């Protein structure tokens, strides 16, 4: 296993009085794809959103325990959350391009981070679109409105937007749930390709998708970490009976 890039220790998360993540201790390896699976409401998206403190935007929430990313305690008082979110990019369930040109969508992250150099921006946009596997499809129409792209292309554009600011971690929350099988296949190929450069954590309800693309699978249930293991082992010989029952569709 690669070096643990994200180190979660005794981490609990509360929505008001409701403890929805219960003392989770987990390491996420660098430059690997880790899938988080579990039934609806088990806390997998909540856990994912803790990695870039997206849950800070929700009122009446609190945490216990620690999360270190690349050795830094991300909940420490001295952390710049904007900088954290630059390092830890996110792709959401539904493609959410801005109603702007393809070019401006990818340039957005750079501009709000204060980048003004046009040549630099153009270069980063090309690289981001190449990395997202979209360059060849859009290079001749960068000024078209992004909303004119297909759903699959829009989602890859969102990946390009996340990559343009050169994050270290890419979080994906059900990134293929709104895509057709072809677009899903392209996105999955992209994810496998991206792990050469980035640490990827993906939440998915699709067992086959987790099996196809991830190196490590983490199973959560009712806010508890039930099992973490190599994907090839979790899906053929899980060690916990409850994991087996979930992945074979006996509940959930």
């Amino acid at each position, binding site marked *: 296993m690669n070096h643990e890039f994200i180190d979660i220790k005794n981490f609990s998360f509360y929505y008001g009085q409701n403890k929805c993540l219960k003392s989770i201790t987990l390491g996420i390896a660098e430059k690997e794809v880790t899938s988080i699976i579990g039934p609806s409401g088990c806390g997998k998206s909540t856990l994912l959103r803790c990695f870039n403190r997206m849950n800070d935007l929700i009122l009446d929430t609190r945490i216990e325990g620690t999360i270190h990313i690349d050795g830094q305690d991300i909940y420490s008082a001295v952390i710049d959350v904007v900088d954290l979110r630059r390092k830890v990019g996110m792709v959401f369930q539904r493609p959410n391009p801005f109603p702007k040109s393809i070019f401006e969508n990818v340039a957005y992250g750079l501009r709000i981070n204060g980048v003004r150099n046009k040549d630099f921006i153009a270069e980063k946009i090309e690289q981001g679109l190449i990395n997202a596997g979209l360059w060849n499809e859009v290079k001749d129409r960068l000024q078209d409105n992004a909303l004119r792209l297909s759903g699959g292309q829009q989602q890859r554009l969102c990946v390009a937007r996340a990559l343009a600011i050169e994050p270290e971690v890419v979080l994906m929350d059900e990134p293929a749930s709104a895509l057709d099988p072809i677009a899903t296949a392209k996105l999955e190929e992209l994810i496998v390709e991206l792990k050469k450069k980035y640490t990827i954590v993906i939440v998915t309800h699709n*067992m*086959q998708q987790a*099996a196809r693309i991830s190196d490590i699978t983490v199973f959560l249930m009712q806010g508890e970490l039930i099992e973490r293991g190599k994907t090839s082992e979790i*899906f*053929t*010989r*899980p*060690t*916990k*009976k*409850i*994991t*087996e029952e979930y*992945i*074979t*569709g*006996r*509940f959930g």
Partner: protein
Amino acid sequence: MERHLDDELQKLKENLLKMASLTERAIHDSFEALKGINKDLAEAVINRDEHIDDLEIDNEEHAIELLALFQPMAKDLRFIVTAMHINAELELIADLTVNICQRVLELADKGGALLAPINDLPHLADNAKWMVKNAIDAFVNNDEPLAEKVILSDSESNQLRSAIIQRLVDGFIVKDGKTAPRAIPLLLVARDLERICDRATYIAEEVIYMIQAKMIRHHREILNQDPPLKS
């Protein structure tokens, strides 16, 4: 939760049992045919083999369909993979009974077998029947101890085969050239019966894989080393 896949797995299991029962009958009848040099019974076993071949194809197609349509995981996946292996092994066992029946036809033309002095041959045939039946029972009932028992009984079959071959060679092939043509088919029968025992062992090994997710093929020393799934 009731799953459509459960019905399909049950169907696959039932069809495999149908095939197992035909195969067990073939083992029994082929040895009965040998004992009585019964050409009619031998030919009946040979003819029935086609039906077992057809069942093998049907079961394999069904299993492939389940893999493609349900994309099963964990114990469902292991069950289907095991069923596919057992399906192939049963077909090979049935082919071995056809070999035995062909020896019966050969012996009938040569004036009968030399069974009386070969006491161990019926014993080996009983072992083969016992091992196939119990390997299948272990599969049906998820019975790991029974599967282990089948695996451990394989060495006795190897010893019986060696003893039979030694006796045939010493007593009927080397010593008296005239009895050799009637002894050689029995030597081949002993080899086929022992191969049936081997195939039953493979089935039992697959059953352990299905239950425990342990691949013990070539590594029987790992039997009983890993704990079962924790609840």
